[in-house]
């Protein structure tokens, strides 16, 4: 069945996503025929900073570590069927990822793979740092930058596809721009066709988190049932020539697409619904409507667009010191009181050298606050399976290590029956963002054969 639409599949929604998700999406795209594209969104703020650190250690590294596991299973099928792949899996080294994909293509018996590389997002070099000093808050401008990346838009992706790229590798681009780039290349819309760009931006927004629109991050037994979550199908958006679209999913998979899943994801990470800012457009879902038009098929209408912002967002990561976490469990009669006593012992041992967060898992934890106000307001109860968790962060590693040692020592010096100590120490990154005029951070696009 061929429709007069461009079908865009979502193969991944974050770096830790399932590697086998894209396969059924690609098979569905091939079976349904017509023009299609596949996107992979694998970049979070922290992911990019870690990638930058990896690249400093090894100049060939710094792209998505699971690149081959994501793309390998579908590369040949996509190339053979003319389905371009667009991914921000280039992270801190899009060229490195492009070269790796070209090697992968040869290993799979494909001829030379034409890859588009989108760069210009990395502002961690000297020129970028000079630029950022103008736009960062004064308190941040002097700090040592781990990574700094400006969110690029759909333009360079569309340019690479028009040049015949089979795969487009980017660093930081706005997540919805991955899909919009594919659609702009196919339909050739003007860059001030705001309503159309706004619609497709929201299609990209719905695809960018993978299964979150097909029943992932959704199930609530007794309230919201989702079939076969272990085999959840990833999404496909069918984009019409005017940018209107239908959300559906891979065939013969679990999960579901209905008005509820689409509404939840439509508003995910949205602030003012009338102003969802991307480098391409300001999308406006204040008048949006969703309609179930078939099994696992939802049409989204009423999305508008307004002229794109004059600035681009930059995400900057700095060294954030050390995070230490330590846990110990108490169970059975009087367990909660023993866990509370253990927390008090740790507080007295640490004194004012660290600001501690204390959780009583099984009593109150994730809903509480770092200041301990919610836990202090909770009258002691008689929970019988309680895990004490203590966490602190500090620039001085030794102080944080001392906390872990104090929790470990509770084995012998703490309340009765304390067991299962686990400790972890990790370096942290702290993130700020700023805005720069778009003309000061242009994207670059290059084709590698």
């Amino acid at each position, binding site marked *: 069945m061929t429709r007069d639409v461009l079908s865009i599949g979502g193969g991944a929604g974050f770096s830790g996503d399932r590697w086998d998700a894209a396969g059924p999406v690609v098979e569905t795209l091939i079976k349904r025929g017509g023009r299609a594209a596949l996107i992979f969104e694998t970049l979070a*703020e*922290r992911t990019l900073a870690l990638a930058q650190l990896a690249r400093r250690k090894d100049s060939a590294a710094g792209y998505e570590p699971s690149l081959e596991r994501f793309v390998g299973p579908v590369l040949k099928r996509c190339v053979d069927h003319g389905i371009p792949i667009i991914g921000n899996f280039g992270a801190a080294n899009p060229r490195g990822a492009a070269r790796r994909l070209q090697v992968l293509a040869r290993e799979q018996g494909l001829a030379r793979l034409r890859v588009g590389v989108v760069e210009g997002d990395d502002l961690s070099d000297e020129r970028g740092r000079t630029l950022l000093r103008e736009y960062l808050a004064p308190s941040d401008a002097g700090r040592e930058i781990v990574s700094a990346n400006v969110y690029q838009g759909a333009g360079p992706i569309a340019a690479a596809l028009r040049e015949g790229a089979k795969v487009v590798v980017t660093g930081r681009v706005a997540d919805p721009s991955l899909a919009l780039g594919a659609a702009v290349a196919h339909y050739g819309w003007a860059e001030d066709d705001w309503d159309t760009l706004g619609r497709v931006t929201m299609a990209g927004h719905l695809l960018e988190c993978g299964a979150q629109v097909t029943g992932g*991050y*959704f199930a*609530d037994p*007794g*309230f*919201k049932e989702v079939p076969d979550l272990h085999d959840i199908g990833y999404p496909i958006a069918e984009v019409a020539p005017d940018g209107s679209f239908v959300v559906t999913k891979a065939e013969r998979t679990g999960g579901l697409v209905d008005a*509820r899943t689409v*509404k*939840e*994801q*439509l*508003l*995910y*990470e*949205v*602030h*003012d*619904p*009338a102003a969802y800012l991307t480098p391409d457009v300001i999308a406006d*879902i*204040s*008048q*949006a*409507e*969703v309609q179930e038009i078939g099994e696992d098929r939802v049409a989204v209408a*009423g999305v508008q667009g307004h002229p794109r912002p004059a600035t681009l967002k930059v995400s900057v*990561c700095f060294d*954030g010191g050390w*995070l230490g976490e330590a846990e110990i469990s108490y169970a059975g009669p009087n367990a909660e009181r023993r866990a509370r006593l253990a927390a008090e012992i740790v507080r007295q041992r640490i004194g004012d050298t660290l600001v501690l*967060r204390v*959780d009583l*898992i099984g009593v109150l*934890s*994730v*809903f*509480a*606050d*770092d*200041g301990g*106000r*919610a836990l202090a*307001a909770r009258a002691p109860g008689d929970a019988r399976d309680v895990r004490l*968790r203590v*966490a*602190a*962060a500090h620039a001085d590693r030794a102080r944080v290590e001392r906390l872990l040692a104090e929790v470990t020592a509770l084995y012998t010096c703490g309340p009765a029956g304390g067991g299962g100590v686990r400790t972890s120490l990790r370096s*942290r*990154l*702290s*993130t700020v*963002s700023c805005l720069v005029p778009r003309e000061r951070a242009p994207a670059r696009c290059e084709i590698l054969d």
Partner: protein
Amino acid sequence: MSETTLRAPLYRLAHGRTGDKGDRSNVSVIAYRPEFFPLIVEQVTEARVAERFGHRRPTAVRRYVLPKLGAMNFVLDGVLDGGVNDSLNLDTHGKSLAFLLLGMEIDVPQALAPLLAGPR
């Protein structure tokens, strides 16, 4: 509350999802049925949501109403203890927070009781 109303948790009238950007959390509240939408618009106010997140010390709570989706979007500033990279919470993203909001109590007319979602 009177004889003609009952009290029910918001999660029997609406579902929702949390997203985060920096130290800002957004929580959608989406009516399961159109009949519930006016009730939740009336009762799930910025003030009540700010109170429910009081221990997180929100610096601002803003509500956006989306009648065509039967939904509201709450934007809560400063409730993530610095956000994903700075919070000491296990759930640094605040992914669980939609369910903190959905635990709010709502007065529901008896006539609508049969429509409430979930186990009786």
